[in-house]
């Protein structure tokens, strides 16, 4: 066992009691608790983003409506997009990374538990900072991709764009810290015998996602920094009157932005690849093809960014290149879809709630994928760009794709996380409301889009004939809202029941089902060894049936990382720097100096913290 030496070293450690109370959550470094924090926070932001969407739908339900004024409308669609991408889907994926990766690879925690807590706190503070803009009536209003020169001081003199810029920079720090952590965790903390090609597909897709985060986020960081210099210190990077180039922003943004869409969808692919085999009672079809198609998608993801920019007139050579590379992505994505169907083919399908959502995901994602291939043709894209056709497309891949898959994952892993099964009847009601509401909201957008209804315009004249379909869309959006209220009711209702979920309620294949639900703080009493894919199915096959319910151990002798509040202090320092930059016209440079000092104060206390740092104990060396 890999921990023998360490276990002996800490043989004096007492049994671990369950820690409770607010302080235990503030100082937690347990990947499972951090996962739950990510999930709860992201779900809150998801509801907020949904509320923004409903306001937009109310405004669009009638022609020539003035329920919202154009300025508020701009703020709402910008915050809806920004919130759903950075504060809902990405952190919901992070919830699963946090909770599942260590369990699936047979580890006690992530490689850097305090860095993990730091990522969460930075994410939370960044999300609050972004949304604090509403309190000042100055929410970001230039779209989630903030095209220059809408974002220049000249055309956006208020703090709206600054909230967006600083908020995204803070959130980028959280994503990068988490990506380093999970990359190292997956490479280094796998249980003995778990080779790369034996990793669960969710871990594989998460691994690829971390690489995308590591390579794509620095690009947007630089773009946001350049914009910050333009707005605060008078450079002209994106200002044509000073020699700058607004199109450069689009290139930088989409070099980040296209990998970003795979950051949003690859974890969803991973979740579905775990759910489908279990409810088809068959191993995942074409494991290696799934891995390599994921890698291929990520690789191509860096070579297609300009398909977002066909209408800027890049010329035939660039258009051809980006059109072809975009079409190529349909191949590995098609491979995945056929493999999912192949997994279900001739399986003994069990239609439990997670399976409903997983199958719904495949169907909805295919529709989104097909309209995506349509935009890869520049002449078609010229017609579709900036219309509701695009809005329909990306909601089919992000809602029909990511959200359906994340919901499947929520129902699938809920018993593991909370020790309670969600109600099947309410779950299926949630599914049908979501499927009907989703299609009623977004399918008509294809038609109004092709008929010329522009996105991001606060109203439309009655004569254009868009009103009937828009009314249907608004009805659909409210059905979607009800669907998630049903989910919330399901959560509340089942949370009153005793924790009696079995360790392995779905007859799962991966390691997390071998330990109690919810798992003890130390995850595994003994770290597992792995000798194949679907390790738990292999154990059950050899045994000839279900495993006995695992006993909850005492955790005696297992070393766990100490709670720490320094990640939170350091996260406050990071956020304070961006607040200070935003306030620098008023506070001057001293605010930045104070914020940087706070960051270093947190960092040094973190690095030399007792119980963690080897420098806090006397050296055993000869000095």
């Amino acid at each position, binding site marked *: 066992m890999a921990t023998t030496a360490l276990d002996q070293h800490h043989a004096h450690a007492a049994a671990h009691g369950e820690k409770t109370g607010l302080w235990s959550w503030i100082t937690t470094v347990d990947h499972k608790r951090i996962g739950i924090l990510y999930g709860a926070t992201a779900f809150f932001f998801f509801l907020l983003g949904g509320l923004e969407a409903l306001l937009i739908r109310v405004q669009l339900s009638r022609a020539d409506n003035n329920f919202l004024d154009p300025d508020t409308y701009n703020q709402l669609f910008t915050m809806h997009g920004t919130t759903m991408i950075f504060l809902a889907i990405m952190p919901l994926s992070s919830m699963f990374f946090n909770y599942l990766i260590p369990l699936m690879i047979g580890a006690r925690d992530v490689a*850097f*538990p305090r860095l993990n807590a730091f990522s969460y706190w930075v994410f939370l503070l960044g999300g609050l900072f972004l949304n604090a803009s509403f309190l000042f009536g100055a929410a970001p209003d230039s779209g989630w991709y903030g095209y220059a020169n809408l974002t220049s001081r000249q055309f956006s003199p208020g703090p709206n764009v600054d909230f967006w810029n600083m908020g995204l920079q803070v959130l980028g720090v959280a994503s990068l810290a988490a990506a*380093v952590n999970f990359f190292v965790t997956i490479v*280094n903390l796998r249980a003995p015998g778990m080779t790369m090609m034996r990793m669960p597909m969710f871990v594989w897709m998460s691994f690829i996602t971390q690489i995308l985060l*590591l390579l794509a986020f620095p690009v947007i*960081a630089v773009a946001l920094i350049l914009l910050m210099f333009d707005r605060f210190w008078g450079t002209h990077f994106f200002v044509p009157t000073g020699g*700058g180039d607004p199109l450069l922003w689009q290139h930088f943004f989409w070099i980040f932005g296209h990998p970003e869409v795979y950051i949003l969808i690859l974890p969803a692919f991973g979740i579905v690849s775990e759910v489908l085999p279990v409810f088809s009672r068959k191993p995942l079809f074409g494991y290696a093809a799934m891995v390599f198609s994921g890698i291929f998608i990520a690789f191509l993801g860096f070579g297609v960014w300009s398909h977002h920019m066909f209408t800027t007139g890049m010329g035939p050579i660039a258009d051809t290149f980006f059109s072809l590379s975009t079409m190529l992505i349909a191949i590995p994505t098609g491979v995945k879809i056929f493999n999912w169907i192949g997994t279900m083919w001739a399986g003994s399908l069990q239609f439990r709630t997670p399976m409903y959502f997983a199958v719904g995901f495949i169907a909805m994602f295919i529709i989104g994928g097909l309209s995506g291939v349509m935009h890869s043709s520049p002449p078609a894209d010229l017609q579709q760009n900036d219309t509701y056709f695009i809005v329909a497309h990306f909601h089919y891949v992000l809602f029909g794709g990511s959200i359906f898959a994340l919901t499947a994952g929520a129902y699938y892993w809920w018993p593991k996380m909370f020790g309670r099964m969600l109600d099947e009847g309410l779950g299926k009601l949630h599914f049908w409301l979501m499927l009907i509401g989703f299609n009623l909201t977004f399918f008509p957008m294809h038609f109004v889009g092709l008929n010329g209804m522009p996105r991001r315009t606060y109203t439309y004249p009655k004569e254009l004939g868009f009103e009937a379909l828009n009314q249907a869309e608004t009805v659909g959006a409210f059905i979607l809202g009800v669907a998630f209220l049903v989910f919330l009711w399901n959560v509340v209702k089942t949370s009153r029941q005793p924790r009696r979920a079995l360790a392995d309620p779905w007859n799962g294949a991966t390691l997390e089902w071998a330990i109690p639900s919810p798992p003890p703080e130390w995850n595994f009493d003994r770290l597992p060894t792995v000798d194949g894919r679907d390790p738990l199915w292999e154990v059950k096959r050899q045994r000839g049936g279900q495993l006995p319910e695992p006993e909850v151990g005492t955790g005696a002798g297992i070393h766990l990382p100490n709670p720490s509040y320094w990640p939170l202090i350091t996260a406050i320092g990071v956020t304070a720097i961006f607040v200070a930059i935003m306030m620098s016209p008023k506070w001057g440079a001293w605010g930045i100096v104070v914020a940087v000092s706070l960051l270093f104060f947190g960092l040094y206390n973190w690095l030399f913290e007792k119980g963690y*740092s080897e420098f806090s104990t006397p050296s*055993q060396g*000869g000095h």
Partner: protein
Amino acid sequence: MSDHAHALETYTGLDSRKLAIWTFIGSECMFFATLISNYLVNKGRNLVGPFAHEPWTDPATGQVMEPIIEIPLVTLGTALLLFSSLFVVLALYGAQRGNRRMLLIWLGATLFCGIFFVGMQVYEFTHFVNKGLTLQRNMFGASFFVLTGFHGTHVTIGVIWLATMFYLAVRGKLPPERSVNLEMAALYWHFVDVVWIVIFPVVYLIR
């Protein structure tokens, strides 16, 4: 300086902290790639001088002015920064062998080079501002200050990191079994040097 994981035997046998630094450096490559691209894209897009390599006419006075870049001082800074990569390797060698004298001398030399480089950059920036090159003046000023400024910030962070190691070494807290802490700082330091190997020709040598 680490979390508990390094104490475990890892799957690959690599120290998790070292792997984390390598991962971070991979990410930083994209950061500087974007900054350097920004510099190259904006090269020659100046509406007004000063220029890096060509003489320019001051619109206020009508005088023809010299190109603004002065290569000799920067070359010296570059040379010292590159030598400091060798010095930090020697310091690490000393740390791993438990040779404290060697560790302190070479780490001190590394720090001297790093501080000289930052000082050189402060002098250069002040000199440029006095000659009329600012962030706001033209695209060269904007992209030059942002690119070299972010590199300088990285050097400064490296100096603070190495100085912390120096302090620990003086206190006798950097025995061979903890030398990986210096190795991580050294990896970062090498990266900062390698980035400058790209920036120096791009900004100072290519016309």
